[in-house]
């Protein structure tokens, strides 16, 4: 893999750490994830819970005979809907607070739903006993095969932050006067989150105080939801999670196993660990729903888009509506005369759908950007030219309000140059290399820039060291690293001198690590904290008789490169090390906070990118190899080259997965996920990933936040799938409109 970054353009507001903050701990095995805190307990104290799941899609548990299981070696308790402690389950507030299944009734809404918990001295004892439960069910007719019941599609009860339908201009008129149209249906499958670290919780009670180690993207969210579920004051709950082994949205909400673990800990009066199996990742902790997208494009001869229509229908759990806004990009990715979008759901007895990396934009661009490619072909127009023709200079979805910053044009031109787009053959099926058919395709990437309120604490410690803390999370994304950088930048210190604390709900509050918002939320809070810290340090120095700064006006002082200086008398300065030493080595601490500016409603904040793919297709086996992808992104400032480009690269790799691999298969008659393992649920392996050439434009977006960065966690997956699909078409002349593009579809296509 090659990593390219435009050094000139990338503005580096501060010194970057050249390694991942927690990297050494990770590669030496010292890093510990939620399930690995067993050592905190004595060997006999910690016990293990295993989740028992329904094997029918709909109905109820009639009875569970646990007599044999309860007598099995090592078994401490079996919790079922018939003996579970009663919890006060307030009304759930989907989608972030999920409609949980906590054994409060015997209902079954999907195959794989938790219906019992077995607690044993060891995990294996719990598991073996679980198999001894004699469960009888009362079956109800299940709602399955949702794709055959599209006439049942309805508006979602709870569309999330966006309305489910949206119309601008006169779409019918647009089609009436169109010279060229595209009208097709595009399908994306159910996808399951498979971070390396499966969900896991260790819970223990001290009186009515509950502490959990929990694999989560949102410690303060778990704190609130768990307190509510267990009916205890919020401040009685502490959530700890210093490292998250990936989450991808699945760990953005608290799912049933977390309160069930706390319940188990209460029942056996011991610390309990509940760690999900890989198979249990397929159902009880969310999935990206499948979407069926009807897209129509109307264009004039010169390529001007007169209208875009995107109607998406998806599966939703009978428990709760979650809307995957695949229709979103149709509203703001291009300028068009009119637009009309809708999102509807069809209920099914399946697990709850949830956020997955780039919710909305990932499937949205995957389908819309194929349609654009089809339109370009019909117009005999270069796909980039078509996109430039309809470039959205302002946000069409918000009455043309300005973007905080948009450099998508630069992405197209830089990307096409690096890729060698000019030499692409517009006619499909023309290029080969030995047996391989070669194809080139491109697509636009996009993801909104989000930001929420956050708080942070910083301290200057003896010896020129610093401490920074915020109750945020690091999903393997680089939060530790950029927090160290931001804190150090405030005093002009070396980021290597900074100790970082996060992942503990006792720390200052920060938002969910989702929606690519962590850096844009937490770093401004740290920036504010270091500004406060500077003032305190200056105050300390000017009042310190032993300081060369003594008696100076505070306004005349500043902190630069680790020293206090006088702006008017450059000869006068004081070292931070000396200052703290004279302060009897007492650290100086400051708090900071930041929230989105009031100007946020006057502008749209969005990230952009252009993705180019080269594929080779074997005409005999119909297998696809992605040879290389060039991705150029406009994401504001790149905060850290290593962790930042790695985020984008990981997203692009997922784009390969989206295009050619992932496919959650539901058994048509039982609603069971049939390929619930990493052997059968495919994600790319090394042989599937060619050269990934990723770079950023690097122009800071200072209107969005004072650091100038927009999030990068999700945009990488957007656009990539369509770029690959379009490249496959260019290679073979076969237009596959259903993901994943597997050999059988290319054989038929």
């Amino acid at each position, binding site marked *: 893999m090659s990593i390219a970054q435009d050094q000139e353009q990338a503005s580096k507001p501060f010194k970057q750490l050249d390694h991942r903050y927690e990297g050494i701990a990770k590669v030496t095995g010292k890093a510990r994830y939620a399930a690995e805190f067993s050592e905190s307990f004595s060997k006999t104290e910690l016990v293990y819970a295993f989740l028992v799941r329904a*094997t029918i899609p709909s109905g109820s548990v009639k009875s569970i005979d646990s007599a044999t299981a309860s007598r099995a070696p090592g078994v401490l308790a079996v919790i079922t809907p018939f003996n579970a402690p009663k919890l006060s389950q307030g009304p759930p507030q989907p989608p972030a607070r999920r409609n949980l299944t906590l054994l409060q009734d015997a209902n079954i809404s999907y*195959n794989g739903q938790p219906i019992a918990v077995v607690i044993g001295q060891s995990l*294996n004892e719990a*598991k*073996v006993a679980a*198999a001894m439960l004699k469960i009888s069910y009362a079956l109800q007719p299940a709602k399955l095969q949702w794709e055959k019941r599209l006439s049942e599609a309805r508006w979602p009860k709870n569309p999330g932050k966006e309305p489910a339908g949206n119309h601008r201009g006169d779409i019918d008129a647009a089609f009436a006067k169109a010279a060229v149209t595209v009208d097709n249906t595009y399908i994306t499958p159910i996808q399951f989150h498979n971070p390396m670290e499966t969900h896991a919780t260790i819970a223990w009670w001290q009186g009515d105080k509950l502490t959990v180690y929990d694999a989560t993207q949102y410690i303060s969210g778990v704190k609130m939801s768990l307190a509510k579920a267990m009916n205890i004051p919020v401040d009685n709950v502490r959530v700890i999670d210093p490292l998250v082994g990936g989450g991808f949205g699945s760990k953005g909400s608290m799912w049933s196993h977390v309160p069930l673990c706390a319940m188990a800990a209460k029942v056996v009066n011991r610390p309990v660990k509940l760690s999900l199996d890989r198979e249990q990742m397929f159902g009880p902790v969310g999935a990206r729903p499948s979407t069926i997208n009807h897209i129509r494009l109307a264009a004039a001869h010169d390529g001007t888009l007169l209208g875009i229509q995107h109607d998406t229908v998806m599966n939703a759990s009978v428990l709760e509506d979650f809307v995957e806004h695949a229709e979103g990009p149709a509203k703001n990715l291009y300028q068009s005369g009119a637009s009309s979008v809708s999102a509807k759901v069809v209920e099914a007895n399946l697990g709850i759908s949830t956020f997955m990396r780039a919710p909305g934009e990932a499937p949205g661009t995957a389908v819309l950007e194929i349609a654009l490619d089809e339109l370009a072909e019909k117009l005999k127009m270069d796909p980039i030219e078509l996109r430039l023709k309809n470039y959205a200079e302002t946000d069409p979805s918000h009455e043309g309000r300005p973007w905080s910053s948009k450099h998508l044009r630069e992405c197209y031109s830089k990307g096409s140059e690096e890729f060698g787009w000019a030499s692409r053959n517009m006619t499909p099926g023309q290029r080969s290399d030995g047996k391989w058919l070669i194809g080139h395709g491109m697509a636009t990437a996009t993801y909104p820039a989000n930001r929420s309120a956050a708080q942070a604490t910083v301290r200057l410690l003896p010896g020129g060291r610093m401490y920074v803390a915020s109750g945020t999370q690091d999903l393997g994304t680089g939060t530790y690293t950029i927090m160290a950088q931001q804190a150090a930048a405030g005093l002009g210190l070396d980021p290597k001198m900074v100790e970082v604390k996060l992942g503990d709900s006792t720390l200052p509050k920060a938002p969910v690590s989702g929606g690519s918002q962590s850096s844009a939320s937490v770093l401004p809070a740290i920036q504010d904290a270091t500004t406060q810290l500077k003032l305190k340090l200056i105050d300390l120095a000017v009042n310190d008789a032993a300081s060369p700064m003594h008696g100076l006006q505070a306004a005349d002082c500043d902190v630069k490169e680790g020293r206090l200086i006088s702006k008017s008398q450059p000869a006068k300065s004081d070292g931070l090390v000396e200052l703290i030493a004279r302060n009897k080595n007492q650290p100086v601490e400051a708090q900071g906070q930041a929230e989105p500016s009031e100007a946020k409603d006057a502008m749209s904040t969005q990230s952009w990118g252009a993705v180019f793919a080269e594929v080779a297709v074997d005409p*005999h*086996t*119909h*297998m696809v*190899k992605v040879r290389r992808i060039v991705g150029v992104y406009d994401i504001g400032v790149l905060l850290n080259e290593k962790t930042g480009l790695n985020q984008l690269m990981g997203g692009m790799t997922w784009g390969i997965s989206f295009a*050619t*691999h992932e496919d959650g*298969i539901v*058994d*048509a*008659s*039982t609603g*069971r996920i*049939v*390929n*619930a393992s990493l*052997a*059968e649920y*495919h994600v*790319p*392996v*090394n*042989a*599937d990933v060619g050269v990934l050439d990723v770079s950023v434009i690097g122009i800071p977006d200072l209107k969005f936040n004072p650091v100038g960065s927009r999030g990068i966690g999700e945009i990488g997956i957007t656009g990539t799938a369509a770029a690959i699909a379009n490249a496959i078409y260019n290679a073979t002349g076969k237009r596959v409109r259903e993901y994943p593009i*597997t*050999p*059988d579809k290319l*054989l*038929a296509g």
Partner: protein
Amino acid sequence: MKSFAYSRATSNAQALEAARARGTQFLAGGTNLVDLMKYQVEQPVTLVDINHLALTEISQIDGGGISIGAMVRNSDLANHPLVRTNYPLLSQALLSGASPQLRNMASTGGNLMQRTRCYYFNDISFSACNKRAPGSGCAALEGYNRIHAILGQTDKGPTSGETCIATHPSDMCVAMAALQATVEVEGRGGRRTIPFAEFHRLPGNDPSRDTTLREGELITAVTLPSAKFAKNAFYLKARDRNSYAFALISVAAGLEMEGTTIRSAGLAMGGVAHKPWRIPEAEKALAGQLASPENFAHAADILLHGAHGYEHNRFKIELAKQGVVRALTVAAQGTSEVA
């Protein structure tokens, strides 16, 4: 997984003696058996570890050919100079399978005995599986049957106790079938030799049995006859990702060439049936013929005669036809260096 007793055998006799007890299974690399135990599909009472048996040699045998010990690991077998040079078809097939880590553990005997990847066999929450629970029916028939059989299956409807559309998932075995290997086994009653074509079986009316190996018998070796296809061999594997995926269909093609004429052929398919699919008539039809697309297509037709697909796997019929023609075409052009 369920608790089990473990014993380690240091001689074949000891292994065979231990295997007398009911519910005993041999543990080789464990890459299939241990997974199935975790899924509670297999629940052995005792595991007899055969990793310490003297079955790790690859040796030349009198009159040509080689003998491969049952505990030779897939990676060692694939990379052995004798195999790379004389049996590139086998080497290619092995290297197309699983991942390096798995091949380092997987044994020759275990690979022969690996069980189907049928989703409905591997998840005990599906009650209908004649292979796992004889007489219970077949959930795959009307389920998600994309990876299932198109040839030689038993299809008497989803509720019949005989229906089974599972496939044998091995790559190695497809090459061995084309090479007409022999399986050497040892039981308490003595040794016997099973021709490869008779080792794996079709589901017939008893899908629970994958092979003709008898209870308690130990595979000791696989022998290959003297090499005929060293210069013209190709293993084609169509799969959903470029590595670490089972075959949708695979084809092992070996040709013995005289100029542009085929003197003899070895041909088998994987991913299409309950056993490696070899029809000797297809090979015979090629013998003495020109290496031409028409003749290859004819062989493909013979191999796929009677193929029958289901809702999700019908594509395999055409994919297999194309695969057979392609594999024979590449084989005829000459073996390329094994990567």
